[in-house]
């Protein structure tokens, strides 16, 4: 039985806790959370051992793994503490706010042979997995354009009092929404090597962007667009969609379905004789032992547990993989604020932004 502790019980933390707490291979032995009201209620009604100091928890409890769901700015520090104690780590997305922290922590986890996973749950959604499979099979021909979109109704008024409305703490639509869309592009195609034409606007928030748009350039010459807006009331909840165009067709995937159009048949999609077909979530989704909000949230936790049990060290959503998304965030920020120099921008790829074209 894996002994696990929760670090952070905010919105995502509580959801992760509810899921991992039911996992047959896991015993949640403690949690660490600053919200004293919540921890008092939990210890009173569930008997969960609660701490408000991570160091003390890590010192007192005999653990195999931690699940970190603190505000993003604390991720690096918490991950480091856990790795120092040789614990396997599941960390909520985004991985880190500073790419250099991420490099160091990914190397540390790898050197210690610890399972390290970040909560990009869309990689566990059947429709996106199907999209990745089809794109990577070459069924669409040579991919030339990718569009990643995420819209939702998070900030609809000029107020907000949580860390999510603070740019220094990893808030804003860039970290909360765009990361998911970028990570899906990395998953389905490859990470972009440069970005341009960045537009980041605050609509209601004082301190952070509520919408983020940019062009993405890929190593193989393909281009892409990122379109993210978390102030879109027309969506009932977060709606994420990836569309890919290739010389032999296109596909669009969201949480519900994967729609594929092929100009000529391909062995990777044997039931498509050319033209449109749809694959639905009911066919693409694998059952989980416990359901809360979506199979993908449970599937990623189960995957983490199984990776530890099987001593697999080549897992999906590793720190290294999530770091690619953090690097893209850094590139986007560098485009908006030239004083930020991305350490990771690929020098070999010519930027295609407006100023680059004007200035040559």
């Amino acid at each position: 039985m894996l002994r696990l502790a929760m670090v952070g019980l905010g919105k995502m933390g509580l959801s992760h806790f509810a899921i991992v707490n039911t996992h047959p291979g896991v015993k949640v032995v403690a949690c660490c959370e600053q919200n004293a009201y919540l921890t008092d209620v939990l210890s009173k009604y569930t008997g969960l051992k609660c701490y408000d100091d991570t160091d003390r928890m890590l010192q007192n409890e005999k653990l195999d793994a931690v699940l970190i769901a603190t505000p993003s700015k604390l991720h690096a520090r918490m991950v480091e503490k856990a790795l120092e104690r040789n614990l396997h780590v599941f960390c909520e997305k985004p991985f880190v706010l500073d790419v250099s922290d991420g490099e160091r922590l990914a190397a540390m986890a790898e050197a210690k042979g610890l399972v390290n996973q970040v909560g990009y749950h869309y990689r566990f959604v059947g429709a996106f997995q199907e999209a990745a499979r089809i794109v990577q099979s070459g069924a669409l021909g040579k991919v030339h354009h990718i569009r990643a979109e995420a819209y939702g109704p998070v900030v609809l008024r000029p107020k907000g009092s949580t860390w999510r409305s603070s740019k220094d703490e990893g808030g804003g639509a860039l970290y909360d929404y765009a990361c998911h869309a970028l990570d899906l592009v990395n998953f389905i195609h490859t990470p972009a090597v440069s970005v341009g034409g960045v537009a980041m606007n605050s609509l209601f928030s004082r301190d952070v962007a509520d919408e983020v748009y940019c062009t993405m350039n890929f190593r193989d010459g393909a281009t892409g667009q990122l379109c993210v807006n978390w102030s879109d009331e027309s969506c009932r909840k977060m709606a994420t969609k990836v569309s890919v165009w290739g010389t032999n067709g296109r596909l669009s995937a969201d949480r519900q379905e994967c729609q594929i159009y092929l100009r000529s048949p391909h062995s990777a999609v044997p039931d498509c004789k050319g033209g449109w077909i749809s694959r639905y979530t009911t066919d693409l989704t694998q059952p989980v032992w416990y359901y809360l909000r979506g199979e993908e949230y449970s599937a990623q936790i189960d995957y983490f547990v199984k990776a530890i049990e099987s001593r697999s060290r080549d897992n999906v959503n590793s720190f290294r993989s999530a770091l690619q998304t953090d690097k893209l965030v850094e590139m986007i920020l560098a485009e908006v604020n030239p004083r930020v120099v991305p350490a990771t921008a690929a020098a070999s790829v010519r930027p295609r932004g407006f100023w680059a074209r004007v200035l040559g």
Partner: protein
Amino acid sequence: MDRVLFGDNQFFGVNHMSEEKARAQAMRFQDLQAVIDVLDAAYREGIRTFMCTTHDRVGEICDYFRANRDKYPDYRFYPCMPYAHKYANAVTEHGTMGALRKFLPEDGAVGAMFRGGVALASKDIEVIAQLLVDAEMKMFQGLSTPVIFIQNVITDLLLGVGLKDAFRMFADHVRNRYQAEPGFITMNVPRLLDVLEEVGVDNPIVCANINKIGFRMCGGMDLYEKTIATRRFRPVAMSVLASGALSPREAIEYVCGQPRIESIVFGASSRGNIRQTKQLIDELTCPAPGPGRRDAQVSAA
């Protein structure tokens, strides 16, 4: 409970198969009259119960039914609370405690006191749970609400976290304050039944996905079928069509073939689909009528 309950997903842009279809439905049903027309069509087919979330727009539907009591003397609502996205978005915007304060009642001395933090400070979640239920129930004032459900996202969050007492608190409050039966929507039936039994909620109404392809039946179909056949609870089947993955006849045949399922909830947008599904349930609920028995069966239904 009636055998057939009418659901509301189609009215609020919820479609588990297609976001495009969900949006088209959201457009169509932004007009209250379009919603009422569909509820009327269901009413004409004999469906008297509307099982609905506590979405803000349900308030408008409630206003209509309050104003037209004569037309629908036997109409019942089964509220399902809360409409979770409004809480989830509020938590993102205001944090857990901020969101809790936002949804606790503003008016009256008690409300003011709680918003001031007295209830929060006491760690007595029973009072807070009651206030949250009352806030959600406001829109149904004066209407018949014989069963009140907790939505699956809350049921399954509480179940996972292990806040078992919350279920008993909910059940007690719903019985005492609203003279209603508590209902629990869940995706995890066997586990929930264990916990409800443990906290003393006897013979509970439990609404869950029950469909021929095992879609979102956590624990697996075999365990579900065994649970339905052998455990003491009152099952309500939802998602019987598995979001359209099954043909209606095949889907209803499966559900009606399970013993002891009391009710089936389904949503539809067209009169034709409502009639077809309702007739299929009526037809497949009774054993095939032999010669001379048809009249008796129809009148019994």
